[in-house]
């Protein structure tokens, strides 16, 4: 069975913190993305590579919810971060 994909912050991402918010951009990108609330919290837990299940567990824990309640939203958000180039997959 394959290991689940882990996500880590991409090395090309330029990051700044503004209180609980996170600002992100990269070379060749005209935008600066602004993460706040749960989105910023997910960014912070990706300080070390994690699977979507691990991220969901940490997010759910902070809300006192079960993992399955937040899993779909976490996966969708990680896919968005991946698509925008702010995170990258690592096999282990």
């Amino acid at each position, binding site marked *: 069975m394959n290991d689940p994909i882990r996500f880590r912050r991409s090395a090309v*991402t330029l990051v*700044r*913190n*503004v*209180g609980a918010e996170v600002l992100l951009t990269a*070379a060749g990108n005209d935008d600066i993305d602004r993460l706040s609330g749960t989105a910023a919290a997910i960014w912070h837990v990706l300080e070390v590579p994690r699977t979507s299940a691990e991220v969901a567990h940490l997010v759910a824990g902070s809300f006192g919810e079960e993992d399955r309640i937040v899993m779909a939203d976490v996966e969708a958000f990680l896919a968005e971060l991946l698509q925008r180039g702010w995170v990258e997959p690592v096999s282990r």
Partner: protein
Amino acid sequence: MSEPPGPAVQGAAPRSQPDLSSTIRWVAAFGLPEAAVGERTVASGVWPATLAWLGFQRLTGLGVAALEAGALRLGDAEAEQLLERHRGAMTVALQIERCLLDLAPRLESDGIDFLVLKGPAVARAFYPDPSWRSFGDLDLLVRTADWQAACVALAKAGFRRQLPEPRRGFDERFGKAATHIGPDGVQIDLHRTLALGPFGLWLEPDGLFEDTVSLSIGGRAFRRLDDTRALLHACMHAALGSRRVRLLPLRDVAQIAGIGRVDWSELDRLAGRWRLRVVVRRALDDVQTQLGVEPPPLARRLLEAPIDRREQRAMAAYLTDRRNRGGTALSTLRAIPGVRSKAAYLRALLVPDREFVMARDGQRRTPYLHRWLVPLRWFASSRGRGSRG
């Protein structure tokens, strides 16, 4: 996901108010191991001025860090205003780093070696979080031999030089840096040396390329000054950059001295060789006075070493009101070796090219007159001192 327009130019200093400076200095020292700890509450009545000063001194990052640590106590509205101001500062910092990443391949493809100075280098190498350290421009150092090629490369990348050189060849012989403005408003200060005037001339800037360390930004490796030379540069910026006290450069000095792997013997050797002991001493004194942080014990030898009279005289030209009356030019003239070089420098100052004059002075009817009056005032003031003596 939008961003404000390009980096803002710092304006005039806000008006000061009683007790304000102590709070600003406290913020500037926040997080330093040696600094006074404790908490600060800023009353809503003085908050607008406090915020203006934090922005002017580029200290919003340290303010937010103090706020998050619970050391700086603000009302909800004031806290949101601080975050908003810092958001603007960090947007500028990201634009500048993005500009560096976009520009680097162009410089490298033209064979131009460069070092990243100050802002991004100091923020990333020495602060606990680069978000603590704001900056408003990008400082790059190139070798003198690469100066013209670097200016051309910037122009090809769409940058416009703010002010042409006074006469052909002036930059490479006597200049410190030139400001270039990019299409999106990002400002690059292209350096050939680290200070204007005699201290910049006494320095051997090309030698700085031999003692560098790697700096990672956006997944790309750059080079910066090693910690010892970064501290030397921070001291130069803090002591010579402006007559008015700027707290962020002083914080950089304290930060690098406290966190960096500084070789104090090497710093002493370089400061002696380049006649910078007076500069380092001044910066460390100001750190102690303004931020309450004593120099490290290892700095004692440097602080107790005798200071050359020429250094003291050069320093005075930066710190007194002579700075605004051509004092730096006069001390530069003294530091330039050889009569022919002195003559070339004077000629550039007194009879600069028309293009330079128009860019600097605009449509003034007698653009050279006020330049020629400066040395007359030197002469008059020296005669005045002579008669009093």
